[in-house]
């Protein structure tokens, strides 16, 4: 039989309840229709997970996914995805991480690992070429992520790469993370709690099989192109001067300059003290410059604090999202404290974005007198480092008010202040908002609203408007659209670019490549992915940009249908009032609000969805070969809308 290049060709199934594992062949037709990674996971989750399954139940699945590019020296391809149903949002859950674990899964001979059931006692899953072992891990339960990783590697061997949870995942904190290779995080949507419920303390992987490609000579040419783009091409120097030099914290200065640095629980987008937490400020603490596996962008770093209150703190990062969440968001200008909170969250296994946002929510509640001083044993005031450290621990161990915050802001605001604080509990679909502001970049509002996992930037954040790349805008959307595309403060044209980016990222997250190189700098687009995938896999259609766009749309639609099946539709596609009704009070974007409605209407039209019901047209689903979702959705919603004959 014709063997596809790039793929391992097998899916590993693990049942934790029965302590059984088996593998099944990856059907070529599925690879062709959904590529891999998040696309293939969407297909499997749709078919293997029943409707309305409790995310914290043995029935929920945890899918660890690679794509055809994983392990094959494609640009920034060391990443992998974990997909599930979220205990935080009850919607589609997806998170990606770098490090070097993803490629090991491929080298062990699997494209995906599908984990179901629930172990009776704490377990470590050890996967290699020939076996899957269920190792008792009662002694590891309670350990932080660093100690867990150390212990697992001491037990199994240094060549194992480890993803694990800390106390937060064990205690089912709804935004618990999974930490990979010590410092990389599958942060969002509470996947750590899914592992915690399954009593799965860690997954350790090593592999020694290789990845073959379909057409090595042609593929070598692609690699030469990749090398050229990263060393000599037009984006090589900008990437080197920012991501390579500073890592993602470089964004602090860039975003403050356009008034989009979330400050004081997203009250405003400009902070006078931003320089103190900038990429430049962090450089002084750099202990090592590192990268993920198979990456030429190399944005990673290990940071160390030598002196003062936080002396001895060593951590990977912090990344921009953490710097905003614990810096400007909480008005903490001591960058050493930010480094420490990053370390603390990673050790405990907490998502830094959600953690920062639940804390800023608490601070605002206190500032506005919705909570009294006596319910907390620390003063929850802006800039109070000591309070932040205490709340982080209280959340991870569900102590006192931490137990309420551990459920995420959407639920916490109903308990704290009797629901009167929900206007500044900033989330979409229950996922706390990330480090952007829709008032200063209108496309962000649409991105947050329509993202299948909630207020999240990584499914469709556009940089062409954020930074005003006129050449890129002209190339992708036509010369006549340049003005409106590049104006980040108008809602016009934003549906167009967000939809385009969402389709592209659906492909990127399935291939799997990093957002750095595909989001910023806009070095790789559909044309490159087509050029890469065809010689890599041998699938003829992958060489066609039009086909890849169709696959991107298919994946984006299927993920949305997953949410629709859970009853999460257009009523969830809204923004907190802060962004639609409170004009930006200070900074370069002063006076702006985000008008979501117009962008949404346009986006729905581009997607082929009915704006009155929020449901996809039957024609749209059929066009995307997603006919299999129609009877399921019709069972829930009655008949699906059809396009009227005249338009």
């Amino acid at each position, binding site marked *: 039989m014709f063997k596809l290049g790039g793929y391992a060709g097998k899916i590993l199934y693990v049942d934790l309840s029965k302590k059984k594992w088996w593998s099944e062949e990856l059907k070529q037709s599925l690879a062709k229709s959904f590529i891999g990674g998040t696309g293939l996971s969407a297909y499997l989750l749709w078919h293997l997970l029943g409707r309305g399954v409790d995310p914290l139940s043995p029935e929920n699945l945890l899918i660890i996914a690679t794509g055809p590019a994983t392990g094959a*020296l494609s640009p920034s391809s060391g990443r992998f995805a974990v997909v599930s149903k979220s205990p935080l949002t009850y919607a589609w859950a997806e998170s990606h991480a770098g490090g070097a674990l993803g490629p090991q899964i491929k080298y062990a001979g699997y494209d995906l690992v599908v984990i179901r059931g629930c172990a009776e006692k704490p377990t470590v899953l050890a996967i290699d070429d020939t076996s899957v072992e269920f190792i008792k891990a009662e002694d590891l339960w309670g350990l932080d992520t660093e100690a867990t990783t150390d212990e697992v590697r001491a037990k199994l061997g240094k060549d194992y790469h480890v993803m694990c949870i800390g106390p937060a995942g064990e205690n089912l904190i709804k935004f618990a993370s999974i930490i990979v290779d010590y410092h990389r995080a599958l942060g969002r949507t509470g996947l750590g709690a899914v592992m915690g419920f399954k009593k799965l303390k860690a997954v350790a992987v090593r592999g*020694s099989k290789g990845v073959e490609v379909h057409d090595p000579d042609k593929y070598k040419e692609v690699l030469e192109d990749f090398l050229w783009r990263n060393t000599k091409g037009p984006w090589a120097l900008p990437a080197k001067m920012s991501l390579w030099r500073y890592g993602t914290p470089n964004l602090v200065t860039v975003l403050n300059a356009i008034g989009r640095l979330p400050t004081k629980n997203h009250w405003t987008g400009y902070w006078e003290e931003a320089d103190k937490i900038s990429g430049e400020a962090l450089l002084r603490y750099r202990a090592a410059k590192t990268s993920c596996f198979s990456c030429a962008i190399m944005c990673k770093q290990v940071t160390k604090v030598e002196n003062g209150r936080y002396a001895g703190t060593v951590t990977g990062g912090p990344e921009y999202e953490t710097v905003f969440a614990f810096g400007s968001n909480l008005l903490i200008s001591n960058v050493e404290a930010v480094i420490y909170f990053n370390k603390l969250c990673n050790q405990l296994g907490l998502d830094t974005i959600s953690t920062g946002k639940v804390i800023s929510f608490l601070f605002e509640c206190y500032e506005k007198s919705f909570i009294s001083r006596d319910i907390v044993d620390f003063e929850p005031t802006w800039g109070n480092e000591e309070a932040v450290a205490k709340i982080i621990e209280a959340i991870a161990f569900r102590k006192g008010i931490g137990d309420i915050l551990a459920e995420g802001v959407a639920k916490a605001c109903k308990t704290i202040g009797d629901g009167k604080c929900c206007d500044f509990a900033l989330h979409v679909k229950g996922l706390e908002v990330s480090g952007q502001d829709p008032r200063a970049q209108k496309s962000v509002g649409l991105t947050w609203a329509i993202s299948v996992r909630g207020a999240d930037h990584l499914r469709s954040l556009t940089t062409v408007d954020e930074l005003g790349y006129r050449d890129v805008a002209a190339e992708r959307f036509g010369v006549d659209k340049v003005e409106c595309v590049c104006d980040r403060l108008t809602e016009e044209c934003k549906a167009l670019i967000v939809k385009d980016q969402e389709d592209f990222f659906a492909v990127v997250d399935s291939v799997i490549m990093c957002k750095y190189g595909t989001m910023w700098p806009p070095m790789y687009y559909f044309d490159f992915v087509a050029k890469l995938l065809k010689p890599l896999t041998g699938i003829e259609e992958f060489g066609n940009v039009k086909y890849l766009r169709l696959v991107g749309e298919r994946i984006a639609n299927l993920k949305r249908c997953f949410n629709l099946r859970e009853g999460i539709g257009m009523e969830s596609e809204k923004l907190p009032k802060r962004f639609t009704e409170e004009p930006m009070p200070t900074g370069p974007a002063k006076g702006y609000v985000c008008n979501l409605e117009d962008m949404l209407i346009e986006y729905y039209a581009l997607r082929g969805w009915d704006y009155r019901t929020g449901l996809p047209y039957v024609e749209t689903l059929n066009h995307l070969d997603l006919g299999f979702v129609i009877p399921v959705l019709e069972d829930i919603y009655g008949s699906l809308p059809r396009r009227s004959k005249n338009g």
Partner: protein
Amino acid sequence: MGLQIRSLKVDPNLCTGCYMCTLICSFSKFKVFNPRLSLLRIDYNYKIGRLEGYALCNQCGNCISVCPTKAIYMDFSGIVRIEHSKCIKCLSCVSACPNNVIVVYNGIPYKCDLCDGDPQCVKFCLVGALHV
């Protein structure tokens, strides 16, 4: 002063652990991406961000003397090569290699030949940690 032998060298402080050198090596030699088949090995510690160990062929020539069929020789530029038509797959060279960087693939030993003057690992080392 004798002949200046060209061989791979590494500056451990510059390595970031991207492993692209090992990937391009196995691909160039065997048309497969597999760090375990690479003719150079690196061991990067992601916890502290440091290259902890590495193994490269320094073209020392230890393998030449143990080869019973004289299949291994040093060419005029100082690169030690295996002439596979003469190789009887006894693998004496593998055990003679002080750095353990002769890799056996499908029963046949392979060693670093600096990719005929254009070492691919050096080319894909964007931080300049590898050089000749």
